[in-house]
């Protein structure tokens, strides 16, 4: 700023550049609208996506996008509402008594888009490609225990595990890495981690046209084995900025805005209130949770944790900050996941109770002071939040105000997301925001991190008197082959966690969508990462 001779030249320059940018944008947009109206057939939709779709390789992670990977590639089994597992590319399967051998019978008549048949050989080839890079998939339970894949006959294969792991089937419903690439897509050495030659899948959609960072067009797969989608074409436009997406939608360039966080809550409500568009929100996909770290000696006391939970008006906070788009949560895991339907006594907003708990814990309010003390130490805690997340920030400020009323001083620290995750993993925090993984990862991924060190959650629980017992139960539940036993274990684990209040559930996060009136039959997929396009119809006008 000290480089310019005159401040006025800066002013002039900035005004000119603003105008240039503004006019540039409008020109672009009008140009593309006119293009589209000519080429757009009635039976297609256009939607926005915040970032490039990445490589359409079924076995890799970011920057590949789950949405487009799930359009081209399909799983052996699919995840449906309530955690029900349905046959997909596998027609049926059986599990051996000891839970170590899974035998899958594949669906007949499925073809890849290169014309090659889907059979046990290609399944093995895909699994082998994934196992070649085991380390990059180690977060996924089934890959860790997977020993080998055996081809039994043309349409049958066996999955051999090294130890029993009940969620194995559920893990196979994920979008990545266990989905299937056709023969001609493989590179010569069969190692897909370095790239594939072409995106050949069995799925309902085929990539038709693609320009990096601009758009991707998918056409309906004419030879799809299942029920053919209604739409002929799906165009995905890459628009990184949320407000630009809304403007493009209002201009009619987009039929649909979909995706988690793709639209701000303010804009969502604005579009909803105009009444000119359709809006919807999904079932809970995850829980926004506070993590009270029990390794902090103040928070090690259950009474303090309960006091904090009683000490803020959750309903008002959720309604006020998320503008009603999230729902107040009493359960740590929402009950639409398997095994999570437990009896929970909601923790009410009651500052008197909170004060009583703190008194009982020995934190007294000295006369003339506003912060409680014990043995000369003030009751002071720090909450960390992702500083790019406006909801976390607003909630931190609300908690600070509310807890100060019960004599707890809360300091607020905004962190870079990477720092926040580092601190969480190292267990170096007092209070943190945490989210569970959602369908189809939960509830097993959730209980896994409660026991498994290295993710911050187990660390936060480490001062619970029953921690060892809890870990034991988690191991048993994950290995259990008996449904009733498993249900019992889950019930016991979740009840203990609710009672111990290291997790403080705040709200259920929901996905949102906005679409034009001529788009029909939008249904949120049960799997939070799966594409929603198969059912959509477009009314011809």
């Amino acid at each position: 700023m000290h480089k310019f001779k005159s401040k006025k030249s800066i002013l002039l320059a900035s005004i000119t550049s603003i105008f240039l940018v503004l006019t540039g944008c409008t020109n672009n947009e009008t140009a593309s609208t006119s293009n589209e109206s000519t080429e757009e057939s009635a039976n297609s939709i256009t939607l926005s996506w915040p970032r490039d779709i990445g490589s359409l390789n079924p076995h890799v992670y970011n920057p590949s996008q789950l949405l487009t990977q799930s359009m081209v590639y399909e799983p052996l089994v699919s995840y449906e509402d309530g955690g029900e597992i349905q046959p997909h590319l596998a027609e049926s399967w059986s599990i051996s008594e000891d839970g170590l051998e899974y035998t899958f019978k594949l669906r007949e008549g499925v073809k890849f888009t290169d014309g090659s048949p889907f059979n046990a050989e290609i399944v093995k080839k895909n699994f082998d490609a994934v196992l070649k890079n085991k380390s990059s998939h180690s977060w996924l339970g089934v890959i860790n225990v997977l020993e080998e894949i055996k081809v039994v006959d043309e349409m049958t294969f066996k999955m051999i595990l090294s130890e029993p792991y009940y969620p194995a089937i559920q893990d196979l419903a994920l979008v990545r890495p266990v989905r299937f690439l056709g023969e001609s897509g493989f590179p010569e050495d069969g190692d897909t981690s370095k790239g594939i030659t072409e995106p050949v899948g069995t799925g309902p959609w085929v990539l038709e046209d693609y320009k990096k960072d601009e758009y991707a067009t998918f056409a309906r797969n004419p030879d799809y084995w299942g029920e053919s989608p209604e739409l002929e074409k799906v165009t995905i436009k890459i628009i990184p900025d949320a407000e630009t997406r809304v403007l493009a939608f209002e201009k009619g360039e987009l039929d649909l805005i979909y995706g988690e966080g793709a639209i701000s809550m303010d804009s969502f409500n604005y579009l909803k209130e105009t009444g000119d568009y359709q809006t919807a929100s999904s079932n809970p996909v995850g829980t926004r949770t506070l993590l009270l770290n029990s390794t902090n000696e103040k928070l090690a006391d259950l009474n303090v944790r309960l006091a904090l939970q009683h000490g803020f008006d959750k309903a008002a906070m959720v309604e006020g900050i998320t503008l009603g788009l999230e729902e107040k949560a009493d359960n740590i895991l929402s009950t639409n996941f398997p095994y999570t339907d437990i009896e929970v006594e909601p923790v009410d907003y009651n500052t008197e109770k909170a004060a009583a708990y703190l008194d009982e814990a020995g934190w007294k309010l000295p006369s003339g002071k506003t912060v409680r003390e014990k043995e000369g130490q003030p009751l002071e805690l720090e909450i960390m939040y992702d500083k790019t997340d406006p909801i976390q920030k607003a909630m931190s400020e609300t908690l600070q105000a509310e807890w100060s009323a019960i004599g707890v001083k809360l300091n607020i620290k905004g962190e870079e997301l990477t720092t926040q995750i580092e601190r969480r993993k190292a267990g170096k925090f007092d209070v943190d925001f945490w989210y569970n993984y959602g369908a189809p990862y939960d509830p097993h991924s959730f209980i896994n991190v409660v026991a498994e060190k290295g993710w911050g959650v187990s660390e936060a629980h480490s001062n619970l008197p029953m921690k060892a017992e809890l870990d034991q139960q988690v191991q048993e539940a994950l290995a259990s082959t008996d449904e009733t036993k498993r249900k019992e274990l889950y019930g016991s684990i979740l009840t203990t966690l609710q009672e111990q209040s290291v997790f403080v559930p705040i709200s259920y996060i929901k996905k949102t969508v906005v679409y034009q009136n001529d788009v029909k039959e939008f249904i949120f997929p049960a799997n939070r990462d799966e594409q929603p396009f198969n059912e959509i119809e477009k009314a011809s006008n």
Partner: protein
Amino acid sequence: MISSIRVGAKSNWAIAICAVVLLVFFLVSILAPWIAPHDPIQVNLALKLSSPSWEYPLGTDHLGRCNLSRLLYGARVSLGFASLIFVASLGVGLLVGTIAGYRGGWIDLFLMRFCDGVMAFPNLVLVLGIVGLLGPGLWQVVLALMMVQWVYYARMIRGMVVSMKQQNFITAARISGSSTGKIIRRHLVPNVLPPILVMGTLEMGWAIMDISALSFLGLGIQPPTPEWGAMIQEGKNFIRSQPELMLYPGLMILLVVISFNVLGESLSERFGVKRRY
């Protein structure tokens, strides 16, 4: 419009108006606890995003906090810390500038090359780097801004000291047996200060912009303390339904920075102070 400012800047009117505006802002920031209608960090979600009323003259923000009170308290942060940066970097600059200018030789060479080094980087980049190292927080931002601003004062003061050193009154003082320290304190500093204060007026505007910019990026002041840049950042999420949440603090920054700049320019033209060297 710009040329009319230039014409206007030459007149005493511009000086008077800007001075009054700034005086009002300074008064407001000092008196904020008494004139603000509400506690600026008091959250009341039941009243969030309410429209202006007698109780809340400018309405409330997304957490139901009084906008007017937050703006008034925000003035404290902006003006207070900008002044602090100004005084601190002036102090360092004065020390380094006079020593380098008066002593000359390799000390001068070393200090001035160091200043050149700092000046070679765009300021905001350097500040972002320092804040990145120290971690976010208002004091870190103040320290970082101070660390990059003092060099400009040092350069300018050194230039003035070098030319002043040749003049007769300094020689006279030296002949009559004054010590170096005394010459610097009694003869150099008083002569250097007035033009530097004029330059400082301009720098204040930049300091306010920088503090706001860094707070907007989430590096400066930490919530819930009200600050104009941070208020713009919070208002950004409600740009559709409540654009005024961004407009109020934006207008405040505009007004204060323009006042400082016009005042600084008018003063320097009037007193013939060269702003840059």
